[in-house]
């Protein structure tokens, strides 16, 4: 490798590191007084695992939501889940203070977690969301 190639490689790795850092700080133009590199993908292979490792942070393990100065809506027995497109969209794009999960979940994980919530916690919707539908909403 000649020196120009080496420098190009170094530049590329600097750019990559920058991109990783940007992802880690989740799209914030200014990262704030915040932590550095952290895993950016959710390691969960079932809808239930994704729910308990991601969604439950706010919507709670029993999907009952919570109330403080503001609220996290209950997903349990929630009639707004009747159309699968709505939860698919909110998971991918976020809503109000809820961050978009698009960068942390692949299409199958998005579909799986929506299907899990729509068939548990007092919800019983028969139609299944698919990875293809999730992909179309990205």
């Amino acid at each position, binding site marked *: 490798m000649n020196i120009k190639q080496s420098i190009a490689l170094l530049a590329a790795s600097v750019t990559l590191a920058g991109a990783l850092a940007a992802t880690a700080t989740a799209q914030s133009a200014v990262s704030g007084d915040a932590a550095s590199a*952290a895993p950016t993908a959710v390691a969960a292979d079932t809808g239930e695992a994704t729910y308990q490792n991601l969604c439950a942070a706010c919507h709670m393990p029993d999907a009952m939501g919570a109330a403080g100065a503001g609220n996290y809506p209950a997903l349990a027995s929630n009639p707004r889940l009747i159309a699968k497109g709505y939860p698919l969209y909110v998971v991918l794009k976020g809503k109000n203070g809820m961050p978009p999960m698009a960068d942390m979940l692949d299409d199958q994980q998005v579909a799986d977690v929506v299907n899990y919530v729509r068939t548990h916690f007092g919800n019983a919707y028969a139609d299944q969301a698919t990875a293809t539908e999730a992909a179309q909403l990205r």
Partner: protein
Amino acid sequence: MDDTADFSHDSNSGMTKRQLLSMIGKSAGGTAMLMAMAPLGQAQASTFKGPISLEGGARGKKVLVLGGGVAGMVSALELSRAGYAVEVLEYNDRVGGRAWTLKGGDTFTELGGATQTCEFAPGNYINPGPWRIPTEHGGLIHYCQQLGVGLEPFQQQNYNAYLHSTAAFGGVPQRYKTIQADYYGHVSELLAKAVRQNALADTVSAEDGEILLESLRSWGALDRNMRYVKSDASASRRGWDKGPGGGLTAVPIPSEPLDAHTVLQSGLWRNIGGHLSNEHQHAIFQPVGGMGQIAAGFERAVGHMIRRNSKVTEIRQSDSGVTVNFVDTKSGERLSTSADYCVCTIPLSVLAQIPLNVGPTLASAITAVPYRPSVKIGLEFKRRFWEQDESIYGGITSTDLPISQISYPSYGYGSQGPGVLLGAYTGGAISYELTAQSPAERVRRAVEWGAEIHPQYRSEFMNGISVGWHRVPWTLGCFGMWNEQTRATHYQNLCQMDGRFMIAGEHASYIGGWIEGAITSALDAVGRLHQRVQQAG
């Protein structure tokens, strides 16, 4: 980011000497200008330009400030100084918002209902939110000085702390100084080789090449042959096998540097850049006793204007004023108050859920900012083993474990009693996963992970406390996350005055997640509000 991209581009295209000199000239000129202007207070690093002066009188007006965090209290302080009647509503039973310290006896109840009582020994604490004050943040330093909040050095970079990767050196942590010395040393040697082989002849003149070689020798601790080798020079940076001393056993023994391949493959060089940004450069400070002291300082000045335990439920403005409905969270009583104007510092994650009549552009800006996940975990140990066993006094160990970092206390060095360190400070997906656990489980995991770096964890651990920011009832997240697109579409709209209502806080700044953002945002807001009052006559 932009600077990095530009520089990479120049490197690839091959910078001529003229371009190089021109670039150096420009930056030197910029530095000279900055130094000349700084004493006049015109070139501060943040937009803080010194104390504001709201001249001309308040015309008998009253301002309602929503939120008793730093943005709200700065607003209250400056508006009341200018003669305004000020009333502040705060959701919590305390003031300060994210300027917050957890110490022994404090309790914290998170969303979901789990209550933790901090068991730290007297003097120990963690700051769950912001925890350090860069020199750059002149606004916060100004108020600390004015409000009698003592500052002390925060050890951001400690050469004796560790860089750790589960995938390098068999998971054995390496001293920061060792990795940095070897990384700089090998890079210097390689670059010197390129200069001597005339590989850079088309971009660096013979004379500059000589200068460059001398600078590389200095930067990398190279020997007379421009080699990075085992020597007193390299050991005085990376550490010795046996350090110098006095008497018969005085002779130092240098250590053997790692080879370039090992250093590069380890990836640990990635962590060296983290301390270089303006906001992490020394000198950097912390309040003596924790960030809660900032809250206490403001409370001394404006605490009498603040009504605590007040949950805002509706904000209505008309041509003549603003009315806010709220609930007393202790008594359940529904109350209402009015003013001529309103400065609202409620986090957007919460404000987005409060009925509010503003124009469509502001309304849509309020719903456009998601809140960042983050978890901090404080751990107390029976003794300061990091000081006693490993000579680490303050500073930060970086790791690719889910805890991301361990920060050692920058206070109480050498004390013999229990010590508290920050055992996790996370961002990204792991933050949600940890937040979703019970407080005890978060602490248990942090101890397990941290023990991979400090085995003493297992025998010395006493207790811990954790804050998952998405479970904080009054913020629903750590701080507002902007991206290029939302900045372009919504930022100006968010900051514009809408009728008699305006927004301030870290979320209305380009210093998101830092108190300086809250301060500069509040000063900008009250300045414009005051201007409006003057114009209204």
